[in-house]
């Protein structure tokens, strides 16, 4: 879609912040200081939650852990459900009982109690902003009869080298907390409870900065050293990008979708790149995240700006140039985490959006085609999930899916 066709008619709320939000989507590459503008210049409150850990509510319109400011630690758990030996009706009941159990588990853990039959409930007592967020893959939706997939699977993208270990699973549980020990206990308890009825597909741990303030503004340092998430949408713009509205809803009211991509970073090769080369590849300065078309992190990514020689300040193939949303629909809320393992380091890219087909997919297609950063990154994992709506008291996660009327 050419820039000339851009018609962000949707969302009045985006009118003000769309320009800022559209400034850059991916790794960080943006200026979420939109917050400051929206708040009339008040300091961004992005890290407030990190200063005062507490208990996050389980019940609500949306699941916790989505719009929530990212906690310091995360673990993404993938599971596959054993459907093979089950008749279809049994499979449906199995899903229902799993979702009921996860609802109970999530509520108990998030409120600081252990799960039922917990052998170490004391580990859950500390307030740490724990959130447990649950979604399902298309495979599980198929069993429930939702075959006319809103969701489906992510398409293949050029250049990716996918490792099946980090691929699509039936179930995703995103666990986040400020405290890694509380987080570990939650992960352990959830996995224990799912033993025997599911097969663990993956467990991917991520981290940001410690729960004390490191950055003044939004975002975090990714392992390339870049400020990631500067331009993430905030406030109402974030909510709209994630959950849509009456005119452009997500797959279900109160629900959204999660794209989980494992992006390996070749840190050794990145070491060879000097500061100017790094800034050129990203289109922003490593020092403070400011775009090469400006001087402050809050300055917009301006692809028309030229430098002293009359050359584009931001190269056409710089990451921010390619990632910049071309429409309001392309705005997504990135909630990724750094990861580091023995053999691999990188970014657990996690984005929430009402419809990946109009947001993540076109953006990623552009990036897969041309992005200066591609020289140092490899997409090794890819999965897409339907994130279940929030839960009212007395209900359980995904209860809406068991009605007779399939969409």
């Amino acid at each position, binding site marked *: 879609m050419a820039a000339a066709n851009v018609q962000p008619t949707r969302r009045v709320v985006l009118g003000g912040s769309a320009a800022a939000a559209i400034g850059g989507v991916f790794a960080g590459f943006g200026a979420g200081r939109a917050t400051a503008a929206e708040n009339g210049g008040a300091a961004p409150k992005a890290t407030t939650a990190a200063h005062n850990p507490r208990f996050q509510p389980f019940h609500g319109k949306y699941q916790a852990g989505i719009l929530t400011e990212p906690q310091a630690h995360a673990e993404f758990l993938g599971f596959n459900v054993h459907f093979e030996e089950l008749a279809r009706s049994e499979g449906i009941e199995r899903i229902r009982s799993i979702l009921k159990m996860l609802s109970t588990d999530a509520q108990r853990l998030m409120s600081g109690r252990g799960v039922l039959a917990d052998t170490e409930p004391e580990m859950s007592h500390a307030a740490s902003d724990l959130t447990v967020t649950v979604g399902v893959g298309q495979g599980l939706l198929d069993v429930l009869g939702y075959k006319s997939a809103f969701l489906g699977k992510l398409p293949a993208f050029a250049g990716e080298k996918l490792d099946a270990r980090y691929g699509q699973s039936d179930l995703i549980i995103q666990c986040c907390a400020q405290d890694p020990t509380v987080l570990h206990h939650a992960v352990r308890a959830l996995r*224990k409870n799912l033993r025997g*009825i599911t097969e663990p597909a993956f467990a991917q741990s991520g981290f940001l900065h410690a729960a004390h303030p490191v950055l003044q503004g939004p975002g975090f340092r990714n392992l390339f050293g870049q400020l990631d998430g500067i331009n993430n949408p905030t406030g109402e713009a974030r909510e709209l990008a994630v959950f849509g509205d009456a005119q452009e809803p997500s797959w279900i009211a109160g629900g959204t979708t999660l794209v989980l991509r494992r992006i390996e970073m070749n840190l050794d090769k990145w070491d060879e790149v000097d500061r100017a080369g790094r800034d050129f590849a990203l289109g922003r300065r490593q020092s403070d995240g400011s775009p090469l078309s400006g001087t402050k992190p809050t300055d917009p990514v301006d692809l028309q700006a030229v430098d002293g020689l009359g050359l584009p300040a931001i190269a056409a193939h710089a990451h921010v140039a390619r990632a910049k949303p071309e429409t309001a629909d392309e705005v997504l809320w990135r909630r990724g985490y750094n990861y580091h393992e023995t053999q691999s380091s990188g970014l657990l890219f996690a984005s929430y959006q009402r419809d990946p087909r109009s947001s993540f997919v076109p953006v990623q297609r552009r990036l897969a085609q041309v992005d200066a950063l591609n020289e140092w990154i490899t997409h090794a994992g890819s999965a897409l999930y339907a994130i279940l709506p929030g839960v009212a008291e007395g209900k359980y996660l995904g209860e809406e899916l068991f009605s007779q009327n399939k969409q």
Partner: protein
Amino acid sequence: MKYFKLTAALAAATTLLLTGCAQEPSAVAPQSSTDQMQGTQAEDLRTNETWAKAAEHGMSAAFGELRNEGASTLELESVTDKTHGTVIEIHDTQGQGAEARMAQHEGALLIKPAEEVVLTPGGTHFMYMDLKTELVASQTSTLQLNFSDGSSAEVQFPIRNFSGANESYHGSPEEHADHEGH
């Protein structure tokens, strides 16, 4: 943890209130109600934190807190699995660790007024003697608690994986090691 006085009027609300979250509530549903003003033993029972240990076959156990909200002692005479017909016994565990041995509780299990009996691994518990059907984690086992006055209560026991509580398995072929599958 809250216990709720259960009356007919409150029965519907109990599902919501007992756990505050309604998933797998430890709801108590009296089976026979005589004079409501007097209150049957079943109606004086409150349960909390109930769960049963997942098992494919052989033996298993159920745990939880049983509280007497009434004015007279509850006499729990027997427990039945009406859904699947597995024989349930009330057992006590004596001793600890490798020395732990289990024995059937003598007489009725007594719960004094305003007191509670906690069924726990290593303590008193309900024993499934020879499972007629698998206890699948995440599902719920419904047991009927029968009292000396002829009243009974249905109690939900959410089924969970639990590697402990093996005291009772001495001399039994199944001590299946659970694997988390890391």
